[in-house]
């Protein structure tokens, strides 16, 4: 039996792979530039593959991967039937509403929101009873208010430097985001003797 990891490409995957290596697993053929898709450790007990972050919950929910490591932002935006076992406290940042300082959120009046996260944005403004039009943007979200496509944006903010460089600032914080270790609901039960130690090891690393 083998335990499969689905990792979200990018910064978080690098940290997750570092964690796995710290736990003593050796991936001989892995390097950042490698074009391979699946990497197996030397003992043949675990393997991981890199996918786009919104796909991680899908792979885990359907059982194509047993364990996934992915940001909370993705889990909020694409809810999946998985166990969210550990907060890894890596890749920490905040989900924020950002816009122009001198142009605060006009509560009670309709406004246009540009975001990569339409579900999170909709849920947040609904609970505030704020009327909004939500425009889904796939990248460079900060551009939207600058050229007048949107009044404000909803996006993850890590240091805030991109916002600052573009004359934007945080208007409201929605929630904290960090990477989570998620587990397929069937695998946790049927491969328990292999998954439990891995989770424990991750827990101890924190």
């Amino acid at each position: 039996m083998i335990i499969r990891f689905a990792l979200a490409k990018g910064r978080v995957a690098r940290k997750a792979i570092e964690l796995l290596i710290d736990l003593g697993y050796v991936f001989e053929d892995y390097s950042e530039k490698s074009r391979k898709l699946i990497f197996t450790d030397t003992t043949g007990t675990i393997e991981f593959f890199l996918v786009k972050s919104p796909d991680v919950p899908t792979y885990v929910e359907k059982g194509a991967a047993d364990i996934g490591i992915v940001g909370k932002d993705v889990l909020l935006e694409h809810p999946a039937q998985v166990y969210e076992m550990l907060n890894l406290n890596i890749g920490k940042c905040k989900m924020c509403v950002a816009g122009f300082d001198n142009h605060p959120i006009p509560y009670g009046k309709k406004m246009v929101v540009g975001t990569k996260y339409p579900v999170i944005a909709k849920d947040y403004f609904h609970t505030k009873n704020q009327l909004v039009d939500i425009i889904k943007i796939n990248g460079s979200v900060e551009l939207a208010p600058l050229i007048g496509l949107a009044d404000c944006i909803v996006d993850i903010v890590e240091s805030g430097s991109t916002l600052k460089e573009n004359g934007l600032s945080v208007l409201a914080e929605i929630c904290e985001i960090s990477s989570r270790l998620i587990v397929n609901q069937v695998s946790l039960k049927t491969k328990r003797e292999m998954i439990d130690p891995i989770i424990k090891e991750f827990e101890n690393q924190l």
Partner: protein
Amino acid sequence: MLFNYTIDGFENIQHQDYFALQQINHKLMSLYRSFGYHQISTPTFETYDLYVNEDSIPSDDLFKLVNHQGKVLVLKPDATLPVTRMAAMNHPNSQEIIKFSYETNIYRNFSSPEIIKKEITQIGIEYFGNNSPECDGEVIALAIRSLLENGINDVHIDLGHVGFINFLFDDLAFSAKEKSTLFKYIENKNIGDIADYLEKLALPDDKKAIILKLPLLYGEPKTVLKHMEALCINDKMRQVVEKISEIYAHLEVIGLAEYVSFDLGFTNQMNYYSDINFKGYINSCGEPVISGGRYNHLSEKFGIPRPACGFAIDLLKVIDYMEQHQLLPQDDQKIHVLFYENSQKSAAYKIAEQLRSKGSIAEVFLMNDAKEIHVSSLKGNALYKNATLYFLTDGKLLSETDGIFSEIKAIDSESEVA
């Protein structure tokens, strides 16, 4: 021409799959029958009110329509409610034992960007009027055996009890919102977020420690039972522990305990489950294929208080698994195809009728082309892969094998092996 005629979430079932479905269906129904269950059927439509008042299925997931009287109907989204109502209407004596089995399609209007099946074929049982651990044991045993009998050995049942968490929460005076947030976290085994959330609540530390242990109450039954005992803070919780240890002991007696583990982290998704609930998994299949439990207070709503327990299998998910693992029953019955010249018509129909009366499949066609052309056109058809071809021509009966025609005296319904 009609294009764009497929509807997301609805599928045709091909003849091989339907054959398998009928075989499996028959096998399961005879299994349930051998335990005394009677098969019944309820209407495809139900009233909207039945489901909305029950609050067990989100209203958005229901397919709604309005009949000519202006009454709002739904396509049956679940089988348990209608079967319970049927039992209540037809068997008013609440002391009676009633065992029903059913096979039905249910409909859920899931909203999802992906294509999810919205027509689900369910097969299941409901056992009314018995509140004993032996009844729970029988229901769980039948759930396990339903998969075993179809050659699936990697079966795994996760048994929980909604009471354990509910009785704990009853003593802790949470608001409805706090309760539902905690339920959601416990269901997802999200210990990190439970800890953060509890920090904000005014609750003694020992109670917080108990809640933090709830998501970890899963795995080997005896170990879980020990952990559960340590967490009980009232008698009702102790009764839960006693009840599920009795069920487990029963399963040990009948030799099915190896398939069962516990998970007390199930909360109450279908609101009617009042007691034990369980899910059935196949090891390499990512989603549960069986779901069941005890619902002792549902029948009261139809005027007859009576305990009940049951389960349903998602049959098409099981068939998908069986297909991937070459476990599906194959349709390999031979088909006898007889071509005749017009002058031989009555002889041909007589032969076919004789074959059918012996239980064979027989088809007759008029010869309007050369033998070889009939052979090649029929052999190219997937529906005739089990066919043997015969020709009744010039008063002779010919049988075809690999393009060679040989004269035979009669078609033998048994021994003619393709």
